């Protein structure tokens, strides 16, 4: 891990910025890159940061210097011939105002357009072993693995050290898929599919968040990217491909009937049953997920129960109506869903 280096940078920024800073390190941080693309971007960022401070220092320095000299000599009072400082000022304006910007931006253009941008570009469909589809919905993410039957929501599992082609689409409005520690962001545009590559170095969990304002619950539309060892990833995918097994207890059995006969199945699909709704997330392996409601609440039995009863409180305006179930029916439903590992 390169945590110490990152701390140093945090410190450097802190000293330069002279503002109290929080949140150095941790997740969803573009300056804690965990892939070669994000690393290239972060490096360019730090170089530009240095340049920007030099530029600002130059301007503010000249301002302060002029201030210091403000009473040295009133300009032009009864001065004949050449105005004092005129020539020097012309050099300064031409060099600092014209030559310097052109030199700096040309360099920047070459570096960013010819080198850095290449690494962040979308891969062709043949160059990666794995393609994943991510579909933005108001306000959750649907994740599909083409070539398999696996469908999940709000979490994306990928193997480590393997380039993965991520196709992003949308079911409604424009969203933006962004996992800062892994790569650039890319918008999901209705009617098209945009592509971005994820190639994570490290096993771990990375937070992503919708970055294009997409309406009411835009703030609560996040996702996790789980980077696993390739073998663990294959096991996970095989498990996700399976349809559900028969409920293990009588309680869960009752829950399953409630799910299929009640309103749940009109919006949610569970592979291996008759439930094939497509408005809400596929729930075939819902119990294996870390969170509910696109990282709004964690996925524990208690939270699940609360979510079913009062999802409109936790995430007002989401597509799922509050489900008024009595205690016993709710117990059955939760038991069924908790069995969907």
């Amino acid at each position, binding site marked *: 891990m390169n945590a110490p280096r990152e701390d140093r940078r945090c410190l450097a920024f802190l000293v330069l910025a002279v503002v109290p800073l929080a*949140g150095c390190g941790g997740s969803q*941080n573009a*300056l804690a890159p965990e892939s070669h693309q994000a690393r290239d971007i972060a490096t360019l960022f730090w170089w530009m940061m240095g340049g920007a401070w030099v530029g600002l220092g130059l301007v503010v320095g000249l301002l302060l210097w002029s201030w210091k000299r403000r009473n040295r000599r009133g300009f*032009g009072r009864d001065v004949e011939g050449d105005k004092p400082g005129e020539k020097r000022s012309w050099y300064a304006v031409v060099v600092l105002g014209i030559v310097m910007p052109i030199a700096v931006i040309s360099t920047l253009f070459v570096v960013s357009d010819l080198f850095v941008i290449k690494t962040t570009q979308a891969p062709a469909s043949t160059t990666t072993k794995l393609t994943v589809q991510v579909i933005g919905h108001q306000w959750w993410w649907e994740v599909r693995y083409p070539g398999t039957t696996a469908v999940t929501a709000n979490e994306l599992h990928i193997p480590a050290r393997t380039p993965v082609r991520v196709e992003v689409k949308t079911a409604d409005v424009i969203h933006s898929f962004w996992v800062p520690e892994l790569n650039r962001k890319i918008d999901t*545009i209705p009617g098209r599919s945009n592509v971005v590559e994820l190639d994570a170095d490290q096993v771990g969990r990375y937070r992503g968040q919708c970055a*294009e304002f997409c309406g009411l619950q835009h703030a609560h539309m996040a996702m996790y990217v789980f980077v696993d060892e390739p073998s663990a990833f294959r096991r996970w995918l095989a498990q996700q491909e399976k349809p559900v097994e028969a409920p293990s207890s009588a309680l869960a059995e009752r829950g399953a009937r409630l799910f299929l006969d009640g309103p749940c199945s009109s919006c949610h699909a569970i592979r291996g049953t008759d439930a094939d709704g497509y408005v809400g997330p596929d729930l075939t392996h819902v119990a294996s997920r870390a969170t509910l409601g696109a990282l709004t609440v964690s996925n524990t039995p208690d939270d699940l129960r609360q979510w079913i009863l009062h999802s409109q409180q936790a995430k007002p*305006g989401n597509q799922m109506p509050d489900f008024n179930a009595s205690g016993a029916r709710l117990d059955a439903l939760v038991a069924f869903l908790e069995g969907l590992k």
Partner: protein
Amino acid sequence: MTAVTHDEVHAGPAPPPTGWRRLLAPGWLRVPWMTALFFGIGAGITVLVRWLEGWDPIWKGSVITTVELTAVPFGFLAGIGGFDYWMRYAAGSPTRPEDHSGHGARSWRDYFRINTDHKVIGIQYLVTTIFFFVAAGLLAMLMRAELARPGMQFVDNQTFNGLFSVHAALMIFLFVIPAFAGIGNYVIPLMIGAPDMAFPRLNALSFWLLPIAGFMMLGSFLAPGGAFASGWTGYAPLASTHQPIGSVFFNMGVQWAGASSIMTALNFLVTIITMRAPGMSFWRMPLLVWANFTTSLLVVIATPFIAGSQFFVMFDHVMHTHFFDYQAGGYPLGYQHIFWFYSHPAVYIMMLPGFGIASEVISVMSRKPIFGYRLMALSLLAILVLGFSVWAHHMFVAGMAPWLRVPMMVTSMVIAVPTGIKVFSWLATLWDGRIHFDTPMLFALGFVSMFVIGGLSGIYLAAVPIDIHTSDTYFVVAHIHYVLFGGSLFTIFAGIYFWFPKMTGRMYDERLGKLHFWLTFIGFNLTFFPMHWLGIQGMPRRVADYVPRFADLNMFISLASFGLGASTLVFVYNMVKSWRFGPAAAANPWRSLTLEWQVSSPPPIFNFDEIPQVVGNPYEYGVPDARHAVFNGDRQVELEEVPTR
């Protein structure tokens, strides 16, 4: 041939109406019933058509709202008298061109009616825009209160989304753009030696469109379903299909504000081209005039594009057309192209007049000629041209054709050159100057330094690899506030303080002015600088809630922003107090050469009792015997008293 006097073809001044006839005279008594009448006509036609066609329901909210947001403002304008002259002219009734009863202000009441005096209109503009500035600032305070801690505390998501949308829309369309138009309105005719704007009645009408647009946008909070909440960018298809009726208030508000902008810009263009005093060649115009000339060109060319984009969205929303519905063959990315084709030039519409104000203030207060006058003017024109070729840099993350990034990146970066010329020319103007740190100068220098930060972060955003990471994050929020607050707002303040003595005839309180500057400068940096860091750390913008690890920094920003908000109180207090009780101002307290300072404070009703003759450049401070203009009557006397004490 007998001379035809005006009395024979035109009626004389109208006698003041009495009794019930006062209801017919243009003014606030005619407004209520005229507005109601137009409301009735709008609703009546809509209902009648729907009834005849057999459409159900006959009274449909979205349709009625759309129709009334057009009809009611026309009723208001007709009531207050915006169209009286033209209606009379069109109908062939006697007109009264020589009746100047609608010109100038003799009491405070004259500021609340159709007034054709550009000086009155300028003040109307400024007071109105400051009202909306305070309103939009309060919305920002509410936002910061909500964002102080993670989780939802004060408002729900819908309200929060409305807050940031209305905040941005008001600040852009009802503050920055028209505030510059207000300063320009007051100063430009004076600066070029003209008695008024070219089209005084059009000028009056374009002012009265503004409060309509502003209250329409604010009023959307009262609409069922809440305010428009798709951001001021209103991206389709979010804005065209997934919004409450409040979004029509935004679509129509933009039309009214945009029409106002376009009409004012045309007025500026015609005034500047045709009404300059004798001797005032283009290369003798003060830079603020150049800036307003360039800005007006931008407005006239670009504003119709946002008008179009908002009409398309409204049609999709209300009439179920399919401009941006891909399932019916629409093109969602098309919205962004049209929108940014206006909205990037709009950034320069909001910045170039500020460049002009900074040039005036810095030159006068350094007692030196502005450095590189011609290059300064030409770089404005360069920005005008380049400004139209960079729009798609707002769309690097949208997945448009990859090759488009190259021209957009190049043009975006090239704008650094004319901007660099301007920044270093200001610095060269300061160099060796006798710098006077009055409040306008503090704001102008604050602008130069803060705008440089905004410009540098702009280069980050022009560089595709950085932009694809930082776009739609708080980094962008920081960037636009450094440009629009550190840039535009600081120069608006500089302009208001600078011309306050000219506008009101009174001097503002210098101590309070300085206090206002330092509070604003410090509060501004403490509020917006940390946002760069939040953004690069991964906090998206336009979120009502965020992960706990951003909590400390957000709390800090919120506290700083309350301080920044409070600094506005100092400004408002200073303005109100000084306007009423301030010491009388001299005609030329800054010892400036430009024409507006050569007349009394405030100026006579038609600006110049005699036509000035422009004989030199406007910025020859400290150059012996230099004059910008002379007045015929006292050429000899004035030439001996060169005002460069």
